[in-house]
């Protein structure tokens, strides 16, 4: 049985995604230091930044949803394409969606500074570029170099200037945006007192993210950071109730069993004499 368990373990560990937790157990790891393509002066040396890449399948002439994350602990970029996101050229069997890290351009954004790598988002099929289908968007999550309480916005690099896009904070240092076109994007931290020139992504009343709002890519908990307390509060309350009931049941049964033992062995009882 131990041999079987070892073989099963080897197979599953070998097949897991790269840089996944070795045992999918314990506490999540802290983010590793940000990996720059071109490290700023004075920053520590780190391994090179990694791309995010995925092959988008095509079924019945329509692309299937797909997502990709870069390999850092605390991925620095993640992209997700919903069903039908791409305009499929004739004869296309699959599309390669990539987010490749690039050096930050020397041009400084108005009222801010770039706090991430520039990530170039591309979709290709047999080396030819593929565009997003009309009315469809690409969801991107990007991690900044560090957490901040200043305003942060994702900006698109046009080749000559920076353009802000509606952005939502979805983690301590992770920001999301829905892009209507592919291209190069980076995270920009605005100077103190400077506000974004674009509105943030709309949120439904009650603090819950709307169905069209950006959110974290690849969330496994089913909860959206910042989506408001109600769902997590409900889970917390139910869990607490179950714990109290279960523990109470165990304690009550233990006490009743002890009472039964004591009454069965009471010193007042006399053993019946044989006839």
């Amino acid at each position, binding site marked *: 049985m131990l041999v079987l368990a070892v073989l099963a373990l080897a197979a599953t560990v070998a097949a897991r995604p790269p840089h996944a937790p070795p045992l999918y*157990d314990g506490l999540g790891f802290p983010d590793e230091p940000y990996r720059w393509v071109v490290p700023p002066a004075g920053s520590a040396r780190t391994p090179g930044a990694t791309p995010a890449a995925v092959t988008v399948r095509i079924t019945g002439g329509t692309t299937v949803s797909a997502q990709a994350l870069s390999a850092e602990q605390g991925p620095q970029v993640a992209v997700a394409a919903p069903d039908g996101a791409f305009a499929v050229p004739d004869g296309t069997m699959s599309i390669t969606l990539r987010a490749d890290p690039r050096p930050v351009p020397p041009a400084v954004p108005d009222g801010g500074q770039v706090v991430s790598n520039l990530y170039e988002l591309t979709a290709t099929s047999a080396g030819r570029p593929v565009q997003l289908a009309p009315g469809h968007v690409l969801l991107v999550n990007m991690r900044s170099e560090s957490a901040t309480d200043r305003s942060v916005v994702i900006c698109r690099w046009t080749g000559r200037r920076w353009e802000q896009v509606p952005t939502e904070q979805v983690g301590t240092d992770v920001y999301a945006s829905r892009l209507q076109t592919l291209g190069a994007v980076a995270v920009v931290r605005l100077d103190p007192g400077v506000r974004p020139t674009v509105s943030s992504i709309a949120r439904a009343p009650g603090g819950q993210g709307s169905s069209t709002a950006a959110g974290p890519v690849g969330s496994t908990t089913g909860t959206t950071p910042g989506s408001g307390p109600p769902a997590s509060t409900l889970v917390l309350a139910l869990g607490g109730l179950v714990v109290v009931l279960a523990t109470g049941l165990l304690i009550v049964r233990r006490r009743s*069993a002890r009472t039964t033992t004591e009454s069965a062995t009471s010193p007042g009882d006399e053993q019946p004499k044989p006839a």
Partner: protein
Amino acid sequence: MTTAPLTGGPPGAGSDRLVGPDRLVGPDRLVGSDRLVGPDRLVRPDRLVRPDRPGPTLTACALVAGLAGALAVRVGLAGGAGVRSIPAGLVFAGILTAVAIAARPRCPLTAGPPRRQLVVGCTGALVLCAVPLTVHLRQPGGALPLAELPTWAAVVSAVAIAEELLLRGALWEVTAGRWGTGGALVVTTPAFALLHVPLYGWPALPLDLAVGLLLGGLRLAARGWGAPAAAHTLADLAGWWLR
């Protein structure tokens, strides 16, 4: 008074008459070697319920419910931080420990013979780390900030030990007493695997089933929950470097 030879006679003929070598006639009647007939109860050995142990099925259900409740509390407390939340992890460990202790009638949960637990546990940890090590050597991850290691390690250890205390300590003993070691393995292995799904997603299920099976095997080999606790803790700690 004449001394009459001992002869057989009707039951109840006299309290001082031994009718046969294996029969004592009286209100407490020993009928056979495996059956004790008391004044109000006929008890067969395969259904003997010791008065100091609660019904095992209900206890097992309560333990599993406690585990599920603790997990819900952890998920609810963690919110967006998810598996990274240290306070949620600590509360989770505390609840598991309290539920495990509540299930024990008298004695505190003992981990088993220390030396055996350590040897088997370390061996199990090596097995758990072997494949991640080979993957890591091919594709190493970046270094994590060392300043966060002590806190992270303390919480990881608390969570791992609490999980084993409940799963392969209390739950194992209760289910093994009722359904044997096979039954204990069948209950604790999927419980361990499903425990990780809300935090890591369904892709974690196959791996954690395999890990649960291995930890159950360590429990069998070491005859105590200390060995799986040691293996579980050491393997989790090694993950800091084996990403």
